[in-house]
């Protein structure tokens, strides 16, 4: 879509070192965790999409040596599941059994129902006499019920080749997570050497080629699911997920992707169908292949969570920020049906906080005019776009679909919808932004119609990696220029990797950003770097002090 694509940048980067390729087996365990590396339940357990009366439970079984992910081989087997209100399983409150086999890559996904709202449960699977690891999950509060608080882990952009998933491990250690929100790029499509940690492949992808067909997508999911830190996080809280582009291919849109060559890499529709089938099989999500991913969950009267799909229905990206297509009202990032669904959901008065799981940024951002040539080049690489002063800086985001962006922000303003929070990933950087009611008067009156909070990447490259400088050095001037040119941006960190924790209460919400000391170190420590809050009814982000 642009003259400078991520793939171009990678090719231009020259030699790529593959660290650990010879020593790290597929799914090499973290040095700090005890993963399930063998046996029928080697891909761990997970839960997702909690409702007041039930939750999805997931696992994958390997019943025989030939039942390898993507193989299409192996026997049909019956897997039973149990849910208890105690970790010792003293009383089973729900149980059942289901069949799986090679037709669904031996994955298991069941809807455990008949559960109590706002209740913590433990679950496990059995295949024959083999028992899976135990997972912990939690149901959503009852519809309309008062809720004192909700604690949500927020993550995105986890490239296994770019580092270790220490973010997941540290997030799993946070107490009382109600759920984990994964905003996309749960896995990456690239072959070893195509996209990693600067020039270093920390852990090579399996299969060792770009994933384009069902077998590839299944094997790649399986590789990620064998990561010990990811397994640990899945085991402590239900996930609510959406995909961004890399679950299929970079900069995907309804008819193709930047990282897809029609013909050479097959037909896009077939490739996307394969990606979606593997996603439906391997993720704890209420989604069937080819169906509708966008959906809404509610958490009593406190919050709704609208999960967007911004890849399946979007028109092709504009060629650049000055392309008139950016402003074409006929182009959409959501598609008409999803847009109507989103606007209706935002208007709903059933829940106080309208949280939106938003794969790409919606805050209008304009390029500063003060960046150096090197900084502009680095931004090109990070964003995969051309850079022209004073114009939208990333046409893969909502900025590239100005009509849809305006429609959402205008809807919030016209209807005076309060407490709307876009929770976003994709951009490998941390942001806290107001959403200006009117860009022309915002610098004077500060009127905002909502906020956007962006978590950074678990491992994927960001600005300092592209500039090849130490973190928090050269990027600082770029961040300052962005904030000066975009007063709605209150916090911006272009360098760090990590995760966020969102605490939601009736009085307000607070996001804490945690950053890793070193993503390529499996023992990386983590520290809280920033905290921002949104008081109820204000639609504005402000710095938060005190303890997380």
């Amino acid at each position, binding site marked *: 879509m642009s003259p400078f694509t991520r793939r171009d940048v990678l090719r231009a980067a020259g030699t790529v070192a593959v660290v650990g390729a010879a020593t790290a087996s597929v799914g090499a365990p973290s040095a700090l965790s005890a993963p399930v590396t063998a046996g029928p339940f080697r891909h761990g357990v997970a839960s997702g999409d909690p409702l007041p009366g039930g939750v999805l439970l997931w696992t994958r079984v390997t019943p025989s040596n030939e039942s390898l992910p993507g193989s299409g081989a192996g026997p049909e087997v019956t897997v039973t599941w149990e849910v208890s209100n105690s970790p010792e399983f003293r009383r089973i409150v729900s149980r059942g059994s289901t069949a799986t086999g090679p037709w669904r890559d031996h994955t298991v996904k069941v809807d455990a129902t008949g559960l109590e709202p706002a209740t913590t449960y433990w679950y496990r699977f059995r295949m024959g006499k083999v028992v899976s690891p135990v997972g912990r999950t939690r149901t959503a509060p009852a519809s309309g019920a008062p809720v004192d608080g909700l604690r949500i882990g927020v993550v995105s952009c986890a490239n296994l080749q770019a580092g270790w998933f220490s973010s997941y491990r540290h997030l799993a250690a946070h107490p009382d997570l109600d759920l984990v929100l994964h905003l996309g790029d749960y896995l990456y499509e690239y072959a070893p050497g195509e996209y990693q940690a600067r020039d270093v492949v920390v852990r090579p992808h399996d299969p060792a080629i770009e994933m384009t067909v069902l077998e590839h997508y299944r094997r790649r999911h399986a590789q990620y699911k064998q990561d010990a830190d990811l397994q640990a996080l899945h085991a402590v809280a239900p996930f609510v997920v959406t995909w961004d582009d890399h679950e299929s291919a970079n900069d995907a849109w309804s008819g193709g992707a930047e990282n897809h060559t029609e013909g050479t890499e097959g037909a896009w529709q077939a490739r996307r169908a394969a990606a979606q089938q593997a996603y439906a099989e391997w993720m704890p999500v209420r989604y069937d292949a080819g169906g509708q991913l966008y959906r809404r969950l509610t958490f009593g*009267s*406190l919050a709704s969570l609208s999960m967007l799909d911004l890849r399946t229905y979007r028109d092709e990206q504009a060629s650049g920020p000055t392309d008139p297509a950016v402003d074409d009202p006929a182009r959409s990032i959501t598609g008409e049906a999803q847009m109507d669904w989103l606007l209706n959901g935002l208007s709903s008065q059933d829940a106080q906080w309208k949280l939106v799981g938003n794969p790409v940024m919606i805050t209008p951002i304009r390029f500063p005019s003060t960046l150096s040539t090197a900084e502009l080049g680095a931004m090109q690489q990070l964003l995969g776009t051309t850079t022209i002063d004073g114009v939208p800086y990333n046409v893969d985001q909502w900025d590239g679909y100005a009509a849809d962006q305006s429609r959402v922000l205008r809807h919030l303003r016209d209807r005076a919808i309060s407490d709307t929070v876009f929770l976003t990933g994709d951009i490998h950087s941390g942001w806290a932004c107001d959403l200006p009611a009117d860009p022309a*008067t915002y610098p004077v009156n500060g009127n905002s119609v909502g906020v956007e909070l962006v978590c950074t990447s678990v491992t994927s490259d960001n600005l300092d990696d592209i500039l090849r400088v130490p973190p928090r050095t050269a990027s600082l001037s770029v961040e300052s220029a962005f904030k000066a040119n975009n007063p709605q941006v209150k916090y911006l960190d272009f360098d760090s990797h990590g995760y966020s924790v969102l605490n939601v209460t009736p009085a307000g919400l607070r996001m804490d950003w945690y950053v890793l000391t070193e993503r390529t170190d499996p023992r990386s420590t983590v520290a809280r770097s920033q905290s921002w809050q949104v008081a*109820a*009814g204000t639609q504005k982000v402000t710095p938060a002090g005190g303890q997380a």
Partner: protein
Amino acid sequence: MNNTSSSVNGPLSVNQEATRRQILRWGAMGGAAVILSGAPGAAWAKPKGPQERVRAYVLVVDGCRPDEITPALTPRLAALRGSGTTYPAARSLPVMETIPNHVMMMTGARPDRTGVPANKIYDRAEGVQRDLDRPTDLRFPTIIERLNQAGRTTGTVLSKEYLYGIFGERATYRWEPAPIVPVSGHAPDAATMDAIIAMVDAADPDLVFTNLGDVDRMGHSDLSGTTLQAARTAALASTDRQVGRFIDHLTATGKWDTSVLLVLADHSMDWSIPTNVISVDLILREREDLRSQVVIAQNGGADLLYWTGPAASRDSGLAEVSSLVAAHPGVLAVADPSSLRLGPEAGDLIATCRAGWRFSDPYVVSNPIPGNHGHPATEPIPFFISGGSPRVRAGVVSSEQARTIDVAPTLGFLFGMNAPAGGYDGTARSSAFTG
């Protein structure tokens, strides 16, 4: 009593006007006399009640936006909010105008049951556009009357003339707003607060229903509304001081510990620039056949449209009007008033504008004021329940979406009243109270 002393409150005289009402002149702070009226036989020197007595004060800060209550700008209101139970998701209800929302507060019923959907309507029987400011316009029993019937006493201290008009003599004790600011038709908050204090001192009603109009009136006229909001900000600070006066007075007179304050707005405020004006009359000018058969009742951010042509062409005519009006870039929606439970008094169509726009009919210069309400952008309101009564839950923030219509049910809950015939349309915000 020395009615010239700035430190003296007290009765100056009581007159009986035959059997219709009593008139009390009360010496207020600052030396002015407050004129209160009372129902026949109402006592002026009410003995103090038992300690468990509840005094309820509904303070409507007219037109206040929820984000305008801040520790810096309105410290007394902010402190009051922080020491009680607050509902940050609270909303006004259509039409987001003063009269219908005050009526919803005191009835707990939607306009299709009260007969009061807007400030201004087209009265088909009289063939005129007029404010709904007559006591007979309100056809649903208010919590005021029902409390009176239960043996309690009530008071109304309403700063706007049309509010005084529609609530009339329903309350045990009334204050007719004075002095009236020309054009705005309201009494300044300082005078209104004098009256509240005088009424509490003179009659000590169980319920006082109060409207403070300065914030709204300064909002309407604030030419810097889209940016600095200079006049509005000054009014907020001033009104906050008046609320502080009231709190201090309740404390000084020993009433605070039995007081419950329900503070809210009837609607908020939105500002537009002179070019963002919608004239439905102008839109219809190219279709004189339609224009001549439609009457417009203008309500700031909402226009009520009444079909006056032949019944046979009503549906097709309204469909065309709706289509033409909806096509204007400043129009947010054109709806059937029944979909908003507005009742027949609201006419045949309701058009609402987008944020940053206003209606102006019949001419684009007819509505010159920058601050308006009535459209959905003006729904968010502050709504909190506070006070010194131990029944108030302190420091609570609730996700419940309180609405103006919840006031009567909440007062009913507080005073142990049954719902009116047919029930409330609102919800008692019992989460604000212990026990």
